């Protein structure tokens, strides 16, 4: 039986390994990322191989920032429910479960709130932002199920603002769902 794999550990390992400045260092950098994940699962290996190939191409073009981003996206993908196996935050609670509990708390406790700023400052909302990229597909799925003011969180996490200038909940929701489909976060 394989050991539990903690996404926190993988990310920490990755973040302490800077992207190489020389093309020759590429393989060792990718190798370091691979060893961070271990051999926990075939599907994981397949995803890693796919990512490594793509990242390698980016590095070949000296696009380190893009390669780095790919690594972050892979981490978020692993954290989502698509690869549930042993991937957990250190709390031992799957990210999807933690997000679900926090989202429910936020929905209930801010139901009567009239200010998006105060909604976004709510403890649960801030904790959701703190969960990072791994919750992006979960937030988008939630947004698809029930439009709500998740835009502050999505922009905080991703640095993107595809709904800028949209002044209705419906319009901003449509923009973010479109963004999510384009980036493969939702079907």
């Amino acid at each position, binding site marked *: 039986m394989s050991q539990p794999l903690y996404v926190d550990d993988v990310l920490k390992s990755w973040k302490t390994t800077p992207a190489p400045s020389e093309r020759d260092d590429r393989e060792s950098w990718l190798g370091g990322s691979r060893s961070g994940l271990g051999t926990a699962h075939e599907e994981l290996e397949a995803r890693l191989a796919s990512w490594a190939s793509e990242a390698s191409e980016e590095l070949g073009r000296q696009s380190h920032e893009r390669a780095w981003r790919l690594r972050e996206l892979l981490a978020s993908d692993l954290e989502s429910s698509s690869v549930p196996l042993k991937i957990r935050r250190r709390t031992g609670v799957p990210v999807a479960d933690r997000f679900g509990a926090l989202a429910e708390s936020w929905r209930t406790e*801010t*139901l*009567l*709130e*009239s*200010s*998006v*700023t105060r909604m*976004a400052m709510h403890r649960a909302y801030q904790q959701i932002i703190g969960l990072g990229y791994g919750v992006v597909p979960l937030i988008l799925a939630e947004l698809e199920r029930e*439009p*709500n*003011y998740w*835009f*502050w969180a*999505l*922009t*905080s996490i991703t640095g993107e*603002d595809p*709904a*800028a*200038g*949209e*002044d*209705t*909940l*419906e*319009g*901003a*929701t449509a*923009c*973010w769902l479109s963004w999510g489909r384009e980036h493969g976060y939702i079907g």
Partner: protein
Amino acid sequence: MNAEEICVIFPGLTVDPHFRIASPHDPAYNCFAWAAGDDHRWWDPVPLIAPTRAGVHWPAHVPVLLSRAAFIAAYATIGYEVCADPKLEEGFEKIALYENADGEPVHAARQLDSGVWTSKLGRANDIEHGAPETIEAPLSGAPALFLRRPRQA
């Protein structure tokens, strides 16, 4: 929310004969929008330094501040001006602006032509109540200012 749950938060409604729930939940608009007669946008001075201002509306050229002056300016864009009290006046419709203990606007209600008031509760229901003060509560603050404009056709 049902009437019982609403009365727990706004105890004054338990003795308000005009209290009724007037709509289902709708997150598309808030109390400030509803007071302005807008039921498809969320009126909110989300600060310019926020990560995004997507999904909210604030009238153009009005200060983006959570302050009494900014809300007076926002409602002035649709013809409201400050008035003395919430009494029903022939030919006018009125808004009550509520503030919390810190002086921040936290709620707004609008007077219907019957004299009854209508309030949107966050992302939840619209309700009707007999007077501005019957929904005084820590969450909604207390009526601090009244505005009026000629009643729209």
